């Protein structure tokens, strides 16, 4: 999974040629860390259809503020440079993220 930051965010997320899901995580967010291996796995499974990347919120405060992320973990779905859907909260599970991926695939068909 690519780690995005302020330097590569435009290129990797906003200008991507397919839907992108950004995993906003933080080093002291245990739910984020526990989910991470499953997110990594999903990124492999769906790598042809969707791009899953991660963003360390502790090192990228400005991006968090820009996208109004104030709760972790948060998963934002970007399509053509715009946020089209977001999910967040410490009770998120792998199933929720997979549902978001499937939704991104649905969106991309239109």
């Amino acid at each position, binding site marked *: 999974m690519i780690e995005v930051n302020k330097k590569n965010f435009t290129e990797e997320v906003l200008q991507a040629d397919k839907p992108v899901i950004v995993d906003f995580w933080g080093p002291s967010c*245990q739910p984020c860390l526990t989910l991470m291996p499953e997110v990594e796995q999903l990124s492999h499974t769906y790598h042809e259809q969707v791009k899953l990347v991660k963003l360390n919120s502790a090192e990228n405060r400005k991006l968090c503020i820009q996208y109004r992320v*104030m*709760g972790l973990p948060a998963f934002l779905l970007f399509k053509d440079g715009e946020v089209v859907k977001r999910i967040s909260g*410490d009770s998120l599970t792998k199933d929720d993220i997979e549902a978001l991926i499937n939704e991104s695939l649905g969106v991309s068909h239109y």
Partner: protein
Amino acid sequence: MTGTCVYDVIIAGAGPAGMTAAVYTARANMSTLLVENSQPGGQMTKTEAIENYPGYRHILGPDLSREMLEHSVKFGTEVLNGNVEEIKDDFPYKTVLVDGYPYQAKSVIIGTGAKHRSLNIPGEKELSGFGVSYCAVCDGAFFEDLEVVVVGGGDAAVEEAVFLTRFASKVTVIHRRDELRAQRILQNRAFAHEKIEFIWNHTVEEILGDGMVSGVRIKHTITGEESDYPCVGVFIYIGMDPLTSCVNRLGITNENGYVLVDENMKTSIDGIFSAGDVNEKMLRQIVTATGDGSIAAMSAQHYVDYLEEKLQTEQEVKEHDNASY
């Protein structure tokens, strides 16, 4: 359906109660399946420092979670990631539905725990992740030099209020009573902290903000007077609700939804035991959850021995009857 695929015990929930039960049952050579739908550790994974679990003067919640899980796995516990949908009191074996798939066991230990309670007020759901949070450890850092409120007056509310002072410029605890329920040591820390203020006798009626939290509407519990209080973060710690949807049909809970057990962690149904925060009890702590877990494990072991003996006797009687024809 009997035969190879019947566990001695299935444990629903891998919090401190369930993981301790698994240490005991697996170590007693019982085939043990531990089912968890989220992260092993339960509420421990969402707290930072634990200071009252004997033997550890200071341990991180995630670290203790990992230690307990590894401990139970070391003795042979099988861990399954899935959601326990229903526990059925079938005979001779219990059925546990996990993500629609039936697992069978001679005994079941419920250790599903509890989940943070919501205020259920306007703005709470809409602004969740936009300033409304239930996890100070996860989200506290977003509020550096900002003003936040904590709703509640118990241990969690006061402990997290103190934690949030690391980031926030001001933390206001809003409580509906005129005194805290939290342990004295926590209260003292909060009262002594220059960044922490208190608003007594107020309930939070609404969370305000357009896309981001901008404040809370509070109401005086006695005069009924309403006012708006500005803040950019709202941390809600007003208590827990037991997670008992998988046992709803068994009729083993009280009017508040907690499972009723005797001192041996037995529910009113033979072979179904319950431990930890999901139970009706006086003190909900890691140390009491682990205590419950060990007792539930021992009770399950006794029950399984009894059940096997009973089934064996029935089998022998049947064979004897058949032989005498």
